[in-house]
C-alpha cells in the first residue's frame, strides 16, 4: 500500500489536480468565514485584548492538525517525510513576521483573511487585497538589494523535535498543554478587557481538552515509526528498484557524473575509520549506521537542491544498501548505492599493487585489498575524473619521483580507461507541492 500523501506528480496540470487544491481552499475559506475572519474588527480586537478569537482559532487549528498528522504517521497511514515542512530562514522570518504584525494592526487583515473579506464583499478587504498585491510586487522589485539577508540563516527542514532533541509525541503533548493554558489565559483576558464571561462558550470545552491530552498521550506512548518500520511499509515500487538493481550505479557512472558541473554529487562512506583512512573516494564523507537515523543527516540530505545526487558506498554493497533502505524510508530522494562498493571501484580504477595488493575476500563487505599505508584520498584512483589524476599511477619499485611521473605519462597513455556502464541515475524532482506559500 502506498502511504499518504498522494503522489500527485502524474496529475500535474489535470483538472483533478486543480480540483483537489480548489476543494482544500474551499474548506479553508468556508471555515475562516464561519469563524468570523471576514470581519476586520474581530481580527483587530485580538491586539486590543477584547476578543481572542484569532488566537483561539489559530492555535486550535495548529494543535488539532499537528495531533492528527503525528497520529497518522505513528499508526503508519502517512509518510511525514514526504510532507512539506517550511524551511527555516530564521531572521528573514522573524523580520517578515514583525513587519506583518504592523501591517495587521494598520490594515486589519492578513492575506488569507482579506480573501475571505473580499469574497464576502467587504470593501476594506478588497482594498487590503489590492494593497497586498502591491506589497508582493514591491518585494519582488526590491529583494535583489538585500538578498544576502533574505537567504541568510538557512536551517533547511528544521523542526521543533530536531531542535529540542525530543520525540515528536512529547513535543506535540507540550504544545497541547501550552495551548490549553493559552486558551485559559485568553478567556481571563477577554473577561477583563472585553467584558465577556470567562465561562462563555460551549460546555464541551473540558471534554475536548481532555480528549486532546489523551490523544497526545497516546502519541507519546506509541511513538513514531523507526526507519526499519518505515522501510517495511515502503511502497512495492520502491522495493522493486532494489530487486531490479535500479539503485546500483557503477563506479564508472559515479566518475562520469562527478565530471558534470551542473550536478552536486556527494559520496557517503559507510565503512569504519580504518578502512576509510586506507582509501576513500575524493571528497567522500564518512558516516555510520547511527548517523543515517539521526535527524541532522536526514535533514541535510532532504535540504539538498534538486540537482544533487548522493551515493552510498561500503566495501561491498551490504552496508550501503542497509543505509539506502533506512534513508529512503525517511524520504531522501536521488540516493544510490555504488555498485560493488570500494572493491569494485579499485578494480576499475586500480591503485598500484605495491600500495594496495589484492587479497582474497573474507566476506563480501570486507576490503579486498591490503594497503601498505593509509592513502586517504591522495591516490589518483580516488579522483579518476580529474585530469591531473591521469597517468599518475606510480609504477612500483621506482625511487625517483620525477622519473616516475615522466615514465607513467609515457606508459599509461595519460588517461583512465573509459569503462562502459548502464545508466542508473535518474534525477527525480522533489515533491511538487510546496504548500500554499511556496
Amino acid at each position, binding site marked *: 500500500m502506498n502511504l499518504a*500523501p498522494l503522489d500527485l506528480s502524474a496529475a500535474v*496540470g489535470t483538472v483533478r489536480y*486543480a480540483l483537489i487544491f*480548489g476543494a*482544500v*481552499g*474551499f474548506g*479553508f*475559506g468556508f471555515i475562516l468565514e*464561519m469563524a*468570523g475572519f*471576514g470581519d*476586520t*474588527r474581530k481580527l*483587530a480586537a485580538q*491586539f*486590543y485584548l477584547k476578543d481572542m478569537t484569532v488566537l483561539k*482559532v*489559530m492555535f486550535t*487549528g495548529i494543535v488539532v*492538525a*499537528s495531533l492528527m*498528522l503525528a497520529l*497518522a504517521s505513528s499508526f503508519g497511514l*502517512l509518510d511525514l517525510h514526504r*510532507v*512539506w515542512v517550511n*524551511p527555516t*530562514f530564521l531572521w*528573514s*522570518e522573524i523580520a*517578515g*513576521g514583525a*513587519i506583518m504584525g504592523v*501591517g*495587521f494592526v*494598520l490594515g486589519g487583515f*492578513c*492575506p488569507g483573511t*482579506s480573501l475571505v473579506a473580499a*469574497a*464576502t*464583499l467587504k470593501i476594506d478587504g478588497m482594498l*487590503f487585497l489590492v494593497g*497586498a498585491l*502591491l*506589497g508582493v*510586487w*514591491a518585494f519582488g522589485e526590491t529583494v*535583489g538589494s538585500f538578498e544576502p539577508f533574505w537567504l541568510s540563516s538557512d*536551517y533547511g527542514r*528544521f523542526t*521543533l523535535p530536531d531542535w529540542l532533541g525530543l520525540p515528536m509525541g512529547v513535543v506535540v503533548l507540550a504544545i497541547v498543554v501550552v495551548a490549553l493554558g493559552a486558551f485559559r489565559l485568553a478567556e481571563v483576558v477577554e473577561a477583563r478587557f472585553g467584558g465577556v464571561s470567562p465561562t462563555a*462558550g*460551549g460546555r464541551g470545552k473540558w471534554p*475536548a481538552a481532555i480528549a486532546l491530552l489523551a490523544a497526545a498521550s497516546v502519541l507519546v506512548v506509541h511513538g513514531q515509526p523507526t526507519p526499519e518500520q518505515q522501510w517495511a511499509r515502503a511502497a512495492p515500487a520502491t522495493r522493486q528498484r532494489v530487486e531490479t538493481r535500479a539503485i546500483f550505479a557503477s563506479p564508472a557512472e559515479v566518475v562520469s557524473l562527478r565530471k558534470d558541473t551542473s550536478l552536486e554529487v556527494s559520496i557517503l562512506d559507510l565503512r569504519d575509520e580504518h578502512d576509510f583512512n586506507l582509501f576513500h573516494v575524493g571528497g567522500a564523507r564518512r558516516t555510520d549506521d547511527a548517523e543515517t537515523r539521526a535527524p541532522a543527516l536526514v535533514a541535510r540530505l532532504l535540504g539538498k537542491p534538486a540537482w544533487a545526487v548522493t551515493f552510498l558506498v561500503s566495501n561491498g554493497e551490504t552496508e550501503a544498501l542497509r543505509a539506502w533502505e533506512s534513508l529512503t524510508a525517511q524520504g531522501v530522494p536521488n540516493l544510490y548505492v555504488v555498485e560493488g562498493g570500494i572493491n569494485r571501484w579499485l578494480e576499475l580504477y586500480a591503485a598500484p599493487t605495491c600500495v594496495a595488493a589484492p587479497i582474497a575476500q573474507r566476506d563480501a563487505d570486507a576490503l579486498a585489498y591490503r594497503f601498505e599505508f593509509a592513502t586517504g584520498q591522495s591516490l589518483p584512483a580516488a579522483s579518476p575524473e580529474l585530469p591531473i589524476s591521469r597517468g599518475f599511477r606510480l609504477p612500483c619499485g621506482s625511487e625517483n619521483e620525477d622519473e616516475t611521473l615522466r615514465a607513467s605519462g609515457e606508459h599509461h597513455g595519460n588517461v583512465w580507461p573509459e569503462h562502459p556502464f548502464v545508466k542508473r541515475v535518474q534525477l527525480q524532482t522533489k515533491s511538487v*507541492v510546496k*504548500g*500554499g*506559500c511556496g
Partner: protein
Amino acid sequence: MTTQSAPAGDKPYMDPYLAGALLGVVLFLSFFLTGGGLGASGALSHVQTGALDWVAPKHVDRVAYFAEIAGGARNPWKSTGVYMLIGTLLGALASGLYNRRARLETRKGPRISVKARWAFALLGGVIMGYGARMARGCTSGQALSGGAVLSVGSWAFMFSVFAGGYAVAWLFRKLWT
C-alpha cells in the same frame, strides 16, 4: 460596543474552538492529500507576477524573483496556490451567502471615517504583502501550516507577528477602539 458579537441581523459566528478544530481537520486533509499545507500569500505573488507578465514580460524575465515564477514559458497561473486561492474565495463566498453576511460594506473601528479605513486597509495590505514575502509565507502558510508540522522558523515567525502587532497596537488604537 464590543466586537464579540456579530452585528444585529447577522448570524452569530461559530464557536472559535469548534472553528479551530474544523480548520485543523482541513489543514490535516491538505497535508494528508497533497503533502502541502494551506496558504494565500504565495498565490498572491503568482497573481501579481502573472498580471505583471501581461504588462511587462521583459521586466519579469529580468528580475530574478519574478522570473522564477513567470520567466520565459513558465505559467504563473497554473499553480497549486492559485487553485487554492480560487477555492478559498468560493468557500468564503458560500459561507457568506449561507449565513447572509455577504453584502457590500466597510467594516471599521468606531472612531475613524470610512475613507480613512480604506486608506489604512490599502497601506496595511502593502506592508502585509511585503512582510509575507520576506517571511516566505503569511499567517496561513507559515504560522498555521508550518506551525502544524512543527517548523522552528514558523513558530519564531508566529511569535514575531504577535510581537510586532502588540508593539504598535497602542500607537494606532484610534483605528480600532
